[in-house]
């Protein structure tokens, strides 16, 4: 299983945490496509807390976190 955590505006009309069935060869694109999140809106994509690219291959049991462009200080 994969744990997908959504933040900020990505939560609008979606759950905060979504569990997804893992399949070998999956990438971040296989996460955002069924959720209807456009690639260009993803500013930060974390795999187990590390900044990653959407095309990176996922591993079973990973925690993914997706953020739109946000900042603060």
């Amino acid at each position, binding site marked *: 299983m994969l744990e997908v*955590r959504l*933040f*900020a*505006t990505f*939560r609008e009309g979606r759950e*905060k945490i979504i569990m997804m069935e893992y399949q070998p060869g999956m990438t971040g694109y296989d996460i955002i496509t069924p959720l209807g999140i456009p690639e260009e809106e993803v*500013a*930060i994509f*974390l795999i*187990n*807390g*590390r*900044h990653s690219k959407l095309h990176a291959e996922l591993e079973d049991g990973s*925690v993914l*976190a997706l*953020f*739109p*462009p*946000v*900042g*603060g*200080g």
Partner: protein
Amino acid sequence: MVTSYNGEVLRVNLTERAIKVEPLDMDKAVKYIGGRGLGTRILLDEGCATVDPLSPENKLIYITGPMTGTAVPTGGRYMVVTKSPLTGMIACSNSGGIWGAILKYAGWDAIIVEGKADTPVYLEINDKEVTLHDASDLWGKKTLEVEAILKERHEGSSVLNIGPAGENQALLAAIMNDGDRAAGRSGVGAVMGSKNLKAIVVKASKTQIEPHDVDALRTAAVDSIKKLRANSVTGEGLATFGTAVLVNIINNIGALPTRNWQESYHPEADSYSGETMRDTSLVKNHACHRCPIGCGRVVKLEDGSVVGGPEYEPLWAYGANCGNSDLNAINKANEICNEVGLDAISTPCTIAAAMELYQRGYITDADCDGVPLVWGSTEAIKTWTEWMGTGKNELAKLMADGSYRLCEHYGVPELSMSVKKQEIPAYDARAIQGIGITYATSNRGGCHVRGYLISPEVLGLPEQLDRTTTEGKAEWAKIFQDLTAVIDAMGMCLFSSFALGAPEYAALLNAGTGTNYDVNGLLEVGDRIYNLERMFNKAAGMKPEDDRLPKRIGEEKIVNGPSEGMQSEIKLTLPQYYEARGWKEAFPTEETLKRLGLEDLVELL
């Protein structure tokens, strides 16, 4: 020549109760821009580096920048520059709201306050009419009440004041203006209290500042506003979620210091995140003068009252760092901080340190007046904040002087998560290598807005760096520190830099003041300001070992969460940073000072 400086400085000697008007030294103004840069130069030149910070000999400078009060977006800021009683080094605390702009509209670039009044006073500035009033009836009152009284007494004015914490000369005391805006850090409120100065009321008949080149300024300002609106962070993200949006980001990378930095991941963090705040207690956002961003929060407390809401820093510090996850309690504790006039970063960080002292048995129930300092206690965070502000008991008084003095009192100064005795903010430097350099080398002590490398290392702005590596970070730290010094000196908000860069700042400054800075020239001023501050600290007695992270952050590994096992590489990056700066053992070389036009400071080396 018309410039966006007023050209006049107000000098108020409280001992003599004398008020003088002085011309602004334009050569110095151009060389150090204004605000943070010019204020530090004046303070150093007037001999304040070696004085006791809470004595009448220290001076308290309220200073604007050349963009303050102009049509430039976010150009509404003022700074308080003084020798810090918390760090014993330079203090420059920066605030928004409208107070700074009105001071400028009234015809002043700065106020220099010196001496000490024998009884409590407040200062009224009504354009060029300046009056000292008795403030005995205001002494002891909290900030919002004082503001309400003075606004009624002086209709149409903006009010800056200190609360009980400043009156008590608590070293964590802030200066508040326009409700919940704060010049919060380094104990500037204690210096104001030491002078018996309760408030400064400003009122002006003008509503704008004439720039050097009206057309060029309009063009540059419109360009900047467009960029701020088009940028997804400054155009939308900050207005919607405020800085609070960082809670989930920083926690999810495993860099949210928890229980006084004993851990770095807080599983309950979402319960006080920007997202949760928006869905529960947020009433609306709030913008400072001339700000198109609007990051401020207005929240509803449990009792129904509507008040200024917490930034990311107090959310973290009262949340994870105190082991607490109750947003309503954080909203309330933050409000108490504002009311009593305490720094909303250092105060909760000191409560966190006290909670660790309680956990380890140094502080016992006998010290706690019935409110034990237990991790996660909502009663403790609210009550101890109030008590620190009012000086309720011996422990509260000790805590109000910050975590370093508190932990030192118990013989364990290493439990204070501070640099130069000022508490370190909300990003674990073991998980984010660059920010550790800026923590260690910040001239005002532990601080995140003296080179905000979170922007590239975490948020990917202006480009994504790998937070876990050290390569190039020393140079990034220097450039961010220098650009920040420029933005502060100009009187603009640091958040504008999510969308604007040095070319935009140069265009705005040149149009306002008639200077001709290019990008390199502008960054050189930032470099000059950074070196000037460092030389102030040198004169004040700073030692190379003061550029040091506390042992837990500098030497120990992260024990939980996504960044488990990571450690700071500060021993490697600090020498790299000194080399990038042209410094030796924490201080500029003679050659560096000469290169930056600071040859007159060589004798201080």
